[in-house]
C-alpha cells in the first residue's frame, strides 16, 4: 500500500512541476492524436454519411465490415501496418517506420471505422421529416444532403471527439510503429508501459494522470457539444 501511495505522490509532484519527460510524451500524444483524428475524419465522416443516406449494392456488407473493424485488436492493426511500412513492405520506400507519421497511419486505420460508424448512426438517427421538409421547401438534392448533415452535426462532432479519445489512449499501434523513441515517438501510453516495466511507478502515474486529463477534457467537450 505504501508503494502505491508513494507512487501517486511522486506522480502528482511530477505533474505539478510539469516534468519535461511527461510533457514531451503528452505533446507527442496530442500531436499524433490530432493528425490521426483529422485524417480519419476526412475519410470516416463522408463514408458514414454515404452509408446512412445512400441505398446501393453492398451497403449492408460495408456496414458489417466497418462494425467488425471496430473490434480489431490494436496490435493486429499495428502488425499489419508494420508489414506495410517496413523496408520489405509495399510502403517501405516512404521510410516511415518508427516516425510519428507511422503512428498516425496506424491510428487512422483504427479511427476510421469508429468515426464512420458513429457518424453513420448520427445521420441515420436524424428525424425522417428533415429530408421531406427540405424537399417540399424546394431544396436541391445537394441542399437536402447538407440540411441532413447540419441536423446531425453534433453527433458527428461527438464522433470526431470520441475518435480523438480512442487514439490518444491507444498503446499497441504506437509501440509497434513508433518504437517508443523519447521526444520523438514516445506517447503517454508507450511511456507508461516502459516506465512501469522499469519500476518507475510514480512516473507511470504522472503519465497516466495527464492522459486521463486529456481524455476527460475531450469527453467534457463532447458532452458540452451534445448538450448544446
Amino acid at each position: 500500500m505504501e508503494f502505491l501511495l508513494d507512487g501517486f505522490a511522486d506522480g502528482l509532484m511530477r505533474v505539478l512541476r510539469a516534468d519535461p519527460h511527461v510533457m514531451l510524451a503528452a505533446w507527442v500524444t496530442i500531436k499524433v492524436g490530432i493528425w490521426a483524428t483529422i485524417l480519419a475524419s476526412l475519410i470516416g465522416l463522408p463514408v458514414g454519411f454515404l452509408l446512412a443516406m445512400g441505398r446501393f449494392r453492398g451497403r449492408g456488407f460495408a456496414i458489417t465490415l466497418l462494425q467488425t473493424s471496430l473490434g480489431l485488436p490494436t496490435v493486429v492493426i499495428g502488425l499489419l501496418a508494420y508489414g506495410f511500412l517496413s523496408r520489405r513492405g509495399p510502403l517501405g520506400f516512404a521510410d516511415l517506420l518508427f516516425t510519428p507519421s507511422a503512428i498516425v497511419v496506424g491510428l487512422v486505420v483504427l479511427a476510421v471505422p469508429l468515426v464512420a460508424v458513429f457518424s453513420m448512426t448520427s445521420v441515420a438517427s436524424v428525424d425522417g421529416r428533415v429530408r421531406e421538409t427540405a424537399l417540399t421547401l424546394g431544396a436541391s438534392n445537394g441542399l437536402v444532403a447538407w440540411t441532413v448533415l447540419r441536423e446531425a452535426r453534433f453527433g458527428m462532432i461527438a464522433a470526431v471527439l470520441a475518435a480523438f479519445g480512442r487514439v490518444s489512449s491507444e498503446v499497441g499501434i504506437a509501440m509497434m510503429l513508433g518504437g517508443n523513441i523519447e521526444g520523438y515517438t514516445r506517447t503517454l501510453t508507450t511511456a507508461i508501459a516502459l516506465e512501469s516495466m522499469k519500476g518507475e511507478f510514480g512516473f507511470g502515474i504522472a503519465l497516466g494522470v495527464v492522459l486521463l486529463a486529456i481524455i476527460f477534457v475531450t469527453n467534457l467537450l463532447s458532452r458540452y457539444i451534445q448538450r448544446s
Partner: protein
Amino acid sequence: MEVFFLGNVKFRFETELVLDIEKVTVSSGEVVLLTGANGSGKTTLLRVMAGLLTPEDGVIKYKSEPIIFGKAGLEHRRRVTLLAQEPYLFRGNVLLNVSYGPRARGMSKSQANELAEEAILNTRCEGLIDRDAAKLSGGEKKRVALARALAAGAETLLLDEPISHLDEENSKLIVEIIKELAASGITLVVSTHIPEWASSLSLKNVRLAYGKVV
C-alpha cells in the same frame, strides 16, 4: 385554370391499396377541403400531390404537365409546398427556418430574410423571430412552419390537418391566416377530419373514405 389533375391514381403501402382516386381536380385560386376520417388517405394524397410519394399507377398533372416525383422533381416541389401535420423545424432560430425556402431558391441572405420577415408578420410570429425553434410550443411551431411554407413562395399550398392538436387560441389564429391566404388568391388544398372550422370558407369539398373519393 386547372392546376391539379389526378386521374386513376393508386398508391400502395406494401400490399395494401391505400389510395384509389378516380378523379380530383383543383383550379387556380381554389380552396379545396379534403375531409375524411383518420386513415382515409388524406395525408397520402397530399404527399402524392406534393411529389414526395410516387403512385404506382395513374396520371397526376400540374398545369397540364405530368409531375416528376422524388428528388428529380425539383421544379414541382418549388411550385407546390406541403405543410405536414406535425411539421419539423430545423435546428436554429425561427428566422433561419423561415428563410430556408428562399435560400433554397438561391436568393441572397438579405433577400431571403426580407421574404421571411414578411411571412413571419403574416403568420403573427413577429415575437418569435429570434427564438430557438426547438423551444417553441406546438401552436407556435405550426405557425412558424406555415410562415416557412409561405416564404418559400409556392403557387399552391397543401396543408395537412393545420389545426390538429392545437388549443383554441392557436386554432383561431391559424384559421384566420388560412382565410387571409384564401382571400389572397393562393391555391390551397387543406385536409382536416374536423371540417366545421372551414365552414365559412368558400371551397370545394373532397371527401375521402378508405382511399377513395366518396
